[in-house]
């Protein structure tokens, strides 16, 4: 069975295109406001105040950012834990996205907290009652695990190729030896980190949901429910594969590669069942708590809820059920985008729309500065992704030779 052989390799296409320059400008704009935040304080750049302590930096950068990086642990579970070999090609891109995504979750937290120089405090100052503590600890550990999971790709890239210039060339040999040792060690122990990555993801994805539970009646009943952690976990699992599909299609389009349609189509079969479980959870919670009464009131809140559920869940669910959609690149792209939009919307609604403080003077609307920083972070992530796939063997390219076993995680090739 020699067909569709792919091997991860660095992309050779040039870095800057008009699109990339535009994205760089968005990134730059974000950095300007970010500088403003660190020089003049949170109040100068954001619309946050004593009524609305959390805005889109928590809702989108942290809440949605964490969920949209879920492709990393869902594909790791599918490819490495369940050993579905055919999905091997998508694991590395998903891992890279998760690594960058979570790095920027951490950067987002760092930007948002007032006393950023104390960000390490949760490591030694524990409060087991706090959902935020659990999110913080799990994200820190998971980020470490993601970096470890990425290390084999780094060793693969540089093993036997270490060639430092000038006086540093003396270090070539020791570094190469270090890489070899690292590679061997990681190879034996990687499964520990892979399982840990999935466990840590499940834990903090659900705890992100627990976050808002403590705000009690300040949160609109359409979203405030004790099963929030479950809904957050289910939606994160459901958005993982659509995120991978969207990225894979975007990357192949951008680099002029043939879309890995066969893999993506078979991956997309998982989406509808996962989305249905999430939708079932959400709808039954609504009926058990009888919150549908709030939908009869026609206002911003009910409209935003409607958009989240209908456009973000029900329509893409229907699309992923259709074979025609799953087998068309455009169909897959649109359906995946809708799921991503739905989860983005859900996190925004949970952290921003639903939050209704008792003495709010005026509603919170994110400031230009907040939006700029959030978009800037996304832009930087895209730029880094592009840079990484040019340096490291992440995206799989077709190869002629048969011997293709990728060297990542548990190696199953016989020696």
């Amino acid at each position, binding site marked *: 069975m020699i067909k569709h052989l792919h091997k991860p390799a660095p992309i050779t296409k040039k870095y800057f295109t008009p699109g990339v320059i535009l994205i760089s400008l968005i990134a730059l704009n974000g950095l300007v406001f970010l500088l403003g935040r660190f020089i003049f304080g949170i109040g100068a750049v954001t619309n946050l105040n004593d009524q609305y302590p959390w805005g889109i930096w928590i809702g989108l950068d942290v809440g949605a950012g964490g969920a949209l990086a879920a492709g990393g642990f869902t594909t790791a579970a599918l490819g*490495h834990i369940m050993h579905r070999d055919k999905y091997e090609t998508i694991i590395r891109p998903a891992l890279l996205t998760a690594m960058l995504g979570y790095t920027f979750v951490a950067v987002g937290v760092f930007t948002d907290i007032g006393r950023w120089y104390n960000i390490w405090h949760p490591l030694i100052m524990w409060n087991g009652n706090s959902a935020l503590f659990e999110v913080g600890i799990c994200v820190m550990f998971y980020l470490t695990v993601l970096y470890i999971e990425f290390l084999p790709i780094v060793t693969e890239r540089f093993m036997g190729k270490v060639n430092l210039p000038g006086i540093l060339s003396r270090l070539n040999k020791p570094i190469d030896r270090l890489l070899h040792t690292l590679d061997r060690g990681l190879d034996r122990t990687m499964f520990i980190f892979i399982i840990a990555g999935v466990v840590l993801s499940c834990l903090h994805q659900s*705890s992100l949901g627990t976050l808002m539970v403590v705000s009690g009646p300040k949160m609109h009943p359409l979203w405030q429910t004790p099963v929030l952690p479950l809904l957050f976990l289910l939606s994160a699992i459901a958005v993982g594969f659509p995120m991978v599909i969207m990225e894979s299609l975007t990357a192949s389009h951008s680099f002029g590669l043939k879309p890995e349609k066969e893999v993506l189509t078979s991956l997309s079969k998982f989406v509808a069942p996962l989305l249905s479980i999430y939708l079932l959870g959400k709808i039954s919670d609504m009926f058990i708590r009888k919150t549908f009464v709030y939908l009869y009131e026609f206002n911003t809140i009910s409209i935003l809820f409607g958009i989240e559920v209908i456009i973000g869940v029900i329509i893409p669910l229907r699309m992923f059920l259709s074979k025609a959609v799953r087998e068309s690149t455009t169909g897959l792209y649109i359906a995946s985008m809708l799921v991503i939009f739905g989860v983005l919307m859900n996190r925004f609604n949970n952290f921003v729309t639903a939050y209704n403080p008792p003495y709010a003077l005026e509603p919170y609307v994110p400031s230009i500065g907040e939006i700029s920083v959030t978009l800037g972070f996304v832009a930087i992530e895209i730029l880094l992704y592009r840079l990484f796939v040019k340096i490291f063997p992440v995206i799989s390219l077709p190869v002629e030779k048969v011997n293709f076993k990728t060297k990542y995680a548990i190696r199953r090739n016989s020696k």
Partner: protein
Amino acid sequence: MAQNRRDFLKTLATIGVSTGAISAVTPQVAKAGPTNILSDNRMGVLVDATVCIGCRKCEWACQGAHDKVQQDFIEYENNDVFKKARRPDTNNLTVVNKYDSELLGSETIKLQCMHCDHPACVSACIVGALSKEENGSVIWDTDKCIGCRYCMVACPFQVPALEYYKALDPKIVKCDFCFERTKEGNLPACVEICPVEALTYGKREDLLIEAKKRIKNHSEKYFNYIYGEHEVGGTAWLYLSDKELAGEVFPKLGNDPAPGVSESIQHGLFAYFVPPVALYALLGGIMWLSKDKDKSEEKL
């Protein structure tokens, strides 16, 4: 194969045992959260809104006691501030608002941190910087604080404030029940200065008895309810008024402690680390089994 199955199993078992051992030790550590004492002798303040004349001397005294910016003493007699409802903020840990009601006339009411018996902020704080002390006050350790503002998200009364316009060292600010003053045997600054004794400082249980006595003796004067007796599990500050305060002055809240649901979820997910360890073992099992399956497929 880089690693045979026995090795795999062995490593997995080692992890299982060591995680088990760690989790056997950690519960005590994990529960080592912030100080959260619910003493029988905790103090409180009874606010009798029917007595309050809205002189705002409490605001002045509070600012003085906490090194905040004070206006001229005479400025506090200016009633223009009553035109809009204010909230406690970074310079005013307590504010007096005037509420006009067509039915019952106007009334001035002092607002500040309620010092809950089961504080949501103490439960929420990521680093356990907030604490409920033996004397009933809810205070915090600024050196621990990371400025995440989760306490503000959690507070059912929307009390904590942050110094948003400071780039370095922004602090969470709220009423600290004059912790430093009461420690030395002094009254809280606001209670001490109140010229009409609208504020009574004392043991919370004694204050409840006193409040009930006042309602009983002057049923024509009071609305028959002590706000704070049961709200979110009870608060140190208790309010008597001639009208219903819940809804207009204070939020309508249930009687269950505010952090109750979130804490039980949190402890359910991490009950002695059993769920995470079980999930780890389950995934390890699946990994091992499917590895086997995979190999047989490869042979085909």
